[in-house]
């Protein structure tokens, strides 16, 4: 039922990618994404595809699970491919009524789809190997230079981590309340729209009440432990850039440098 939804898609593990500093992961992901769009030689695509597959294998995330991450964008990819196929002049492959599908179009569409797919896979790898809490920590750390222009980095990150922390709790709670009301004869599955909407009231009211109660309790507990915002706070798990992060960084630099040379030399 509801609890079948897992939050984000974190896949616990101890691989190289799991152990990397989340800030480094986010920064390198950014570099890679830029790379994928800048280097448009066929060889570069080969390199990026191979690298992505390699990373996926290293991460130990089941390939099928990873492949599923493309599901929400599947239609867009197919659509992109079709538009390119019939929008590009060239040698015709086949016709459907007035539309002509060309080989050149297919090649171009394929390249664009490959780019998009690589993008999705790489970002999914980040969320598969980084817990939501690590992500918010990294966000806070990366945003902290902006504090001087008034971006409340700590507060944003704290809000995000509290929200993330409570999503599973609220899902669980919803599941429980739904079951409790089902035991009292509510039927969520049949009836017309109005009936179904009104059957939401017995769920939403208790859910809101419990959310407010929890928020209240949490605020109280935080104050009782002297929480006063981010000023001067230390953390239990300090983010640390370690040898393996520098290693990953060095690999990326070498790879990008090689690609720049290839592009300039026109290889």
């Amino acid at each position, binding site marked *: 039922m509801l609890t079948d939804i*897992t939050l984000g898609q974190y896949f616990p593990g101890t691989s190289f990618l799991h152990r990397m500093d989340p800030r480094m992961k986010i920064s390198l992901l950014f570099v890679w994404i830029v790379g994928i769009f800048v280097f448009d030689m066929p060889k570069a695509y080969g390199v990026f595809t191979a690298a992505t597959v390699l990373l996926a294998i290293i991460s130990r995330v089941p390939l099928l699970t990873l492949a599923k991450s493309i599901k929400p964008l599947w239609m867009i990819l197919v659509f992109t491919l079709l538009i390119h196929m019939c929008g590009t002049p060239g040698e015709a492959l086949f016709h459907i009524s007035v539309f002509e599908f060309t080989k050149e179009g297919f090649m171009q569409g394929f390249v664009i789809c490959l780019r998009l797919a690589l993008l999705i896979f790489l970002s999914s790898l980040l969320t598969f190997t980084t817990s939501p809490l690590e992500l918010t920590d990294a966000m806070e750390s990366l945003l902290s230079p902006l504090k001087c222009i008034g971006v409340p980095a700590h507060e944003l990150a704290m809000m995000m981590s509290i929200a993330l922390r409570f999503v599973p709790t609220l899902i669980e709670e919803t599941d429980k309340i739904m079951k*409790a009301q089902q035991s009292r004869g509510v039927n969520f599955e049949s009836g017309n729209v109005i009936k179904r909407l009104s059957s939401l009231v017995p769920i939403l009211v*208790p859910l809101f009440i419990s959310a407010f109660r929890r928020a209240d309790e949490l605020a109280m507990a935080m104050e009782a432990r002297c929480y006063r915002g981010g000023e001067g706070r230390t953390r239990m798990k300090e983010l640390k850039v370690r040898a393996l992060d520098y290693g990953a960084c060095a690999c990326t630099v070498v790879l990008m440098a090689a690609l720049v040379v290839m592009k300039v030399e026109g290889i």
Partner: protein
Amino acid sequence: MSIEIKNISYTYMPKTAFEHQALKNVSFTLNEGEVTAIAGHTGSGKSTIVQHLNGLLHPTDGQVLVDGTDLASKGDEAVKARQLVGLVFQYPEHQLFEETVAKDVGFGPKNLGVSEEETEKRVREALEFVDLDYDVFKDVSPFQLSGGQKRRVAIAGVLALKPKYLVLDEPTAGLDPRGREELLSRVCELHKKKKVTLIFVSHKMEDVARIADRLIVMNHGELVIDAPPRKAFLEEAAIKEAGLDIPVTVRLLTELKEKGFSVDTDAFTIDETAKRIARAIKERGRR
């Protein structure tokens, strides 16, 4: 007539990284008229079993039959069978939502299509049964009540469905000793007067010993003991293994017996225990 649990297994979130088998091949029968207690430490699968009894969860494997009808089957018969079983969740007060106590208690009967008059009658009866005066409480908002009162309103909400089998998941959790005592005696009365078959989940072995005819002990999703409490407490090792305690009285008497006093160990009230100890001391003096 009975609820038959036949070889059920249940897995939460199958085929994901969080797959968890909460029940492993559990079988037992709950007979009409009995009071059955289900005990086990946190996470042993008690709530999971309980949710199978009225078809909120369907077993991954196996069958649940209520008066002979498989709850997982399609059709009206299964729906009817589910309605025979009333389930009170753990912390049931969290499910209250109506503006007034009477409306909240009447919510269940209304869903079942019971007439206004009959609903009012049932609400009155259910509230009186949990010791809340209908005329005083009917127009009060449930959110103004104390914790114990809220819980009683929530239980009344299930009683108003007139279930043949009443299942309570840790009904006394979080109540003070007095509230616990009152709730238990209410529930017992329900069994005696209305002939409702009771199934309740509890950690408190004292409570189990006092009111249950039968004790089912769960450990890591498996059924380890299914026996009358008196017999079950003899299997001390298995009970300890399941993370539960033997009632204090039984422990005391067992230790005395080990020290050479001739006492029977199956006393569950303080009075009875005291009497037995006195008798044993006298007997020893005579010898």
